[in-house]
């Protein structure tokens, strides 16, 4: 406990350096802006910034990324409430009650409960991260290659099963990512794999180029082909900027409940920050004294989900920093950024790069405070970003994507990848294939393969080693359960239905 506190203080020393504070401010401003704007999220922003941030010290870069991560959550809620336009997927639920409140002239109170709830949950989440992460890291020291492989298999299956509308689509997306990650020279044997004789493919497919193209180009192609944008209509910020006494009384419990739901789900592989918002909303609706108010602007329906998504954002950093396990597209790009600096997240990161880890955690506290101060008074200004005409918004995103792709290596081959991945992103969007499993597969695939091959090398090719330790056996059993449970449930449901039909038939036509 004492050493954790001392480490955190050391982190604050780094995070409070003037240049790092400036970068935290830049990150929070940028994060809020991209949270407000459609078509661009934290994963894409961080990926586009990577060529620039590699010129900075890793601590400074990650302090900025932490600001972007939290800022996007705040920005997303602002547009959800005032425009019924969720800038981020984790703010979809906020729009249900928040926008209704705004239409009833209570937009300011909705923004306030969202911002304060986010601050409370973000701060509690960061405190939990501060004390839980070292414990997780200690636990991770006991993990060998078999346990790591099993953990990655579990992450793959849960991410594929949870994201998107169908498991098959989720698994296909994951496999596409895994298929891309094997292209290039095999790091263990030096053999060329799936390069089709092209020297351009020897170094593999660059992760950031695929990410930028899937998100930015794919989204732009989808919007241009399938939508007709209409001008946004702003709801007035009437009703005073501050919350009433009754609003406080109705908000504090949902904030805490949202935190309790959000943080642990964020830690889980495939938790992400969307699922807890839906759970929090459902719970608040169930616990509400007047459930009929839900759908007509219940403040609990804003306070709970907003707290849940910020607590989950702190939660997702636990598996990333302690195990090197990304559970969302944004954490996948953060892992890629760490790898770009030659750092591998995991328990050793806390030993070898303690300054980096603790300055990131300290910057989360600072970023949260900055966002609270910035967002409450500036909400009206942020939302005006949406008045940027759609043609210029998407043309601007495309131009910056070109900087991100061309700036990496100045290679025409990368521009071809941009076109192909952009088209793939378009089709994935049209036919509802989730993008996150592809990215997680692509970034985690090489590590999973490495651990699999190390395990099999230890056992001289005997695959039973994968279930030889209790931890790996349990993790693989859970992964199997995730895959097989819907099939089993379907068979059970069919049998139950058949029995019920037989019982009904017998009772109607007794022999």
């Amino acid at each position, binding site marked *: 406990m004492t050493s954790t506190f001392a480490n955190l203080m050391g982190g604050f020393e780094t995070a409070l350096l003037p240049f790092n504070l400036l970068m935290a401010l830049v990150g929070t401003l940028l994060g809020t802006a991209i949270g407000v704007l459609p078509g661009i999220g934290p994963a894409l922003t961080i990926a586009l910034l990577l060529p*620039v941030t590699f010129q900075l010290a890793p601590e400074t870069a990650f302090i900025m990324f932490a600001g972007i991560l939290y800022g996007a959550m705040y920005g997303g809620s602002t547009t959800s409430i005032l425009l019924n336009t969720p800038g981020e997927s984790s703010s979809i639920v906020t*729009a249900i009650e928040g926008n209704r409140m705004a239409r009833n002239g209570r937009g300011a109170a909705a923004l306030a409960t969202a911002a304060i709830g986010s601050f409370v949950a973000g701060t509690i989440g960061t405190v939990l991260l501060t004390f839980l992460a070292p414990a997780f890291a200690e636990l991770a020291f006991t993990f060998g290659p078999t346990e790591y492989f099993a953990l990655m298999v579990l992450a793959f299956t849960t991410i594929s099963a949870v994201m998107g509308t169908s498991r098959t689509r989720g698994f296909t997306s994951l496999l596409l990512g895994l298929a891309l990650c094997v292209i290039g020279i095999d790091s263990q044997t030096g053999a060329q794999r799936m390069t089709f004789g092209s020297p351009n493919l020897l170094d593999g497919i660059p992760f950031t180029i695929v990410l930028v193209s899937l998100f930015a180009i794919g989204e732009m192609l989808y919007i*241009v082909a399938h939508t007709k944008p*209409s001008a946004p209509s702003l709801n007035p910020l009437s009703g005073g900027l501050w919350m009433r006494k009754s609003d406080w009384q109705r908000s504090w419990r949902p904030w805490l409940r949202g935190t309790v739901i959000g943080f642990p789900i964020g830690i889980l592989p495939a938790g992400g920050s969307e699922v807890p918002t839906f759970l929090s909303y459902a719970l608040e609706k169930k616990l509400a004294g007047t459930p009929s108010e839900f759908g007509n602007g219940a403040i609990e329906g804003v306070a709970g989900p907003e707290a849940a998504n910020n607590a989950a954002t702190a939660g997702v950093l636990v598996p990333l920093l302690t195990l090197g396990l990304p559970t969302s597209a944004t954490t996948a790009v953060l892992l890629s950024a760490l790898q770009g600096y030659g750092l591998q997240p995991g328990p050793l990161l806390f030993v070898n790069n303690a300054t980096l880890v603790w300055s990131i955690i300290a910057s989360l506290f600072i970023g949260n405070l900055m966002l609270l101060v910035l967002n409450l008074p500036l909400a009206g200004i942020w939302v005006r970003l949406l008045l940027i005409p759609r043609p210029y918004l998407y043309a601007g995103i495309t131009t910056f994507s070109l900087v991100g792709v061309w700036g990496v290596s100045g290679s025409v081959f990368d521009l071809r990848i941009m*076109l192909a991945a952009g088209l793939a992103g378009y089709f994935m969007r049209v036919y509802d294939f989730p993008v996150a499993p592809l990215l997680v597969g692509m970034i985690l695939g090489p590590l999973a393969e490495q651990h699999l091959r190390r395990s099999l090398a230890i056992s001289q090719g005997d695959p039973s080693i994968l279930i030889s330790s209790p931890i790996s056996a349990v993790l693989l059993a859970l992964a199997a359960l995730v895959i097989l449970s819907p099939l089993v449930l379907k068979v059970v449901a069919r049998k139950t239905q058949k029995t019920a039909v037989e019982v009904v038939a017998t009772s109607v036509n007794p022999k």
Partner: protein
Amino acid sequence: MTSWLRRPWWVGVAIIAMGSVWLYGASTLSQSSSISGVGPGIFVTLIGVALIVCGVVLVFQMSRSVDDLAAPAEEGAGKTPFQAVPFVTALVAVASPMLLMTSVGFPLTAALIFAAVTHAFGSRRILFDLAVGAVLSSTSWFVFRWLGVELGSFLPLLRL
């Protein structure tokens, strides 16, 4: 809407084809190794097989209509049927850097893309959009160069 768009079984076929390519690629690689037990081909084989399995399931699933499965468009925007001309214009814009980048450089290429994308989104102020694109791309070129990101020559044809 045509049946192949409403029932996109061909997506599953494409996944099966990709899985087959990966399986073929794996067959050219060693599946075992005397040192580590498994060779560089085993992971590729597993992926190829899994892709084919997913592809087969997708063919069955997507033979049914998925018209309503497509993700919702951004809120506040009305979803419309597929608009071919804007899509092709935007696609050409994204493809054009492959031909233009090395000869005309980043600022001009990005300005052209900017104007083409705005055109695809319905803007008809071509000269204005080109000017906005040129200002944005030139500023980006100078700022990113200052930040240490190399975006090539400003105007390669003029050796600038």
